[in-house]
């Protein structure tokens, strides 16, 4: 059991799925964790799942950045690991994509992580780390994901530039790139039968013939956050081989 005693971690989009699994592993390992979310039900569920060891904060990824940085400063003083995981996906074909959908995804997936890290920098000591959640679709062409994939490709690029710029401060920046992960979001965001069909298709297409667990991505985030001390600017694909084989 790895111990994270004394570590202070902030996870945006930490009330469900990958963010929540990461928070749970950290709380279990003794870390102090602040997670953010938007929806009242998931905030409540996260409070139940994480217990008193975690701060579950309602925060909008785009409009809440300044307040979040102030809250983290007040609670923790410094932050040892910042996981920029909040994101949104709105599946649509090129011809059907509206400007509003385009702007929303770039605002949440690209611009928000950019300025969140900018605001958090003063809180991050030498030896701390940032992990950005990207996606395997940023190197693939998957129908209906043109905007989403592009937002994450931009984020993958920022991983490199942030990594270079933050080396003088002793801060490492890496990305974790999940493939199909069973977070329950599909069943919640589309009709049940459609979700089942989609999951069956994804499972059949995946080299490992299954979807991944949120916990498997959490382990990669924690490796990048605390163990990968000679690794910066990289992207780890946690995708059952989908982007690699």
């Amino acid at each position: 059991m790895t111990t994270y005693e004394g570590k202070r971690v902030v996870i945006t989009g930490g009330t469900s799925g990958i963010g929540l699994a990461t928070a749970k592993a950290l709380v279990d390992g003794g870390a102090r964790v602040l997670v953010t979310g938007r929806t009242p039900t998931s905030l409540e569920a996260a409070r139940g799942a994480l217990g008193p060891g975690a701060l579950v904060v309602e925060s909008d990824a785009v409009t809440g950045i300044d307040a979040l940085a102030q809250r983290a400063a007040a609670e923790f003083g410094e932050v040892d690991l910042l996981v920029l995981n909040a994101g949104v996906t709105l599946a649509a074909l090129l011809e059907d994509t509206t400007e509003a959908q385009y702007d929303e995804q770039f605002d949440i997936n690209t611009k928000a992580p950019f300025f969140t890290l900018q605001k958090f920098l003063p809180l991050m000591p030498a030896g701390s780390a940032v992990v950005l959640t990207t996606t395997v679709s940023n190197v693939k062409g998957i129908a209906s994901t043109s905007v989403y994939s592009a937002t994450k490709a931009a984020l993958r690029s920022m991983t490199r530039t942030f990594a270079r710029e933050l080396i003088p401060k002793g801060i490492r920046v890496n990305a974790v790139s999940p493939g199909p992960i069973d977070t329950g979001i599909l069943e919640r965001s589309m009709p049940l039968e459609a979700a089942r069909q989609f999951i069956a298709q994804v499972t059949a297409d995946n080299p490992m013939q299954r979807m991944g667990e949120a916990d498997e991505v959490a382990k990669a985030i924690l490796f990048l956050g605390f163990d990968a001390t000679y690794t910066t600017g990289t992207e780890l694909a946690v995708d059952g081989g989908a982007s690699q084989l």
Partner: protein
Amino acid sequence: MGRYEGKRIAITGGTSGLGLATAQHLIDEGARVLITGRTPSAVAAAGRQLGDNAVAVESDTSSLPQIDALADRVKAEFGTVDALVVNAGIGSFDPFDAVTEQTYDEVFAINTKGPFFTVQRLAPLISEGGSVILNTSIANQTGWPALSVYSASKAALRSMARTFGKELLPRNIRVNAISPGSIDTGKLEKELPPERAAELRAEFTATNPMGRWGHPDEFARAVAFLAFDATFMVGIELVIDGGLSQL
């Protein structure tokens, strides 16, 4: 109780540098490890250093009969292994126009063909849910002078991580690569004249984004991550290079 209690790992090229550091890291966390080396004195010394939870075996990775003998030995010692770390390799620092056919063949025999047949012959001994980790190099995606043969031998190995990854999945064995940059194993000083070694050491420090060499333990932790934690990762190459190939 160590994190790797009960795990059995075979590491080729484990008598020095990255292989030895990885063996030590895994043993410190409770694993049993079998390492190989070519030089009898180095094999004996590494065995003594690693202690009772290590088996040190003399084996030349460029010899197929010796790879077969290694498979027999692994089977006799451990039955099955949870991870196979294919780490044995050789450096080669000749300018392109000075490379002889002999050097070329030796580098490919040790860095590419040996690993291929090591995985082929030892794969039957890897337990379900186990994994293979191939030690490549960030040189496989850059163009450094005097590294043409070495880089190509490792590029071929990186490719095999993908194909092995696909072919071994039906047995639920994951294959990944780990790609070290400049890790401080003392190898430079061992293989090059002192002046050239000092020159390269300073140059690699100056050109590395992190401005330092990596520690062998940083490599070892990545091996352990790929072996035991990266359960939804196949065919990737994890770079441990201070950002050199990424920024």
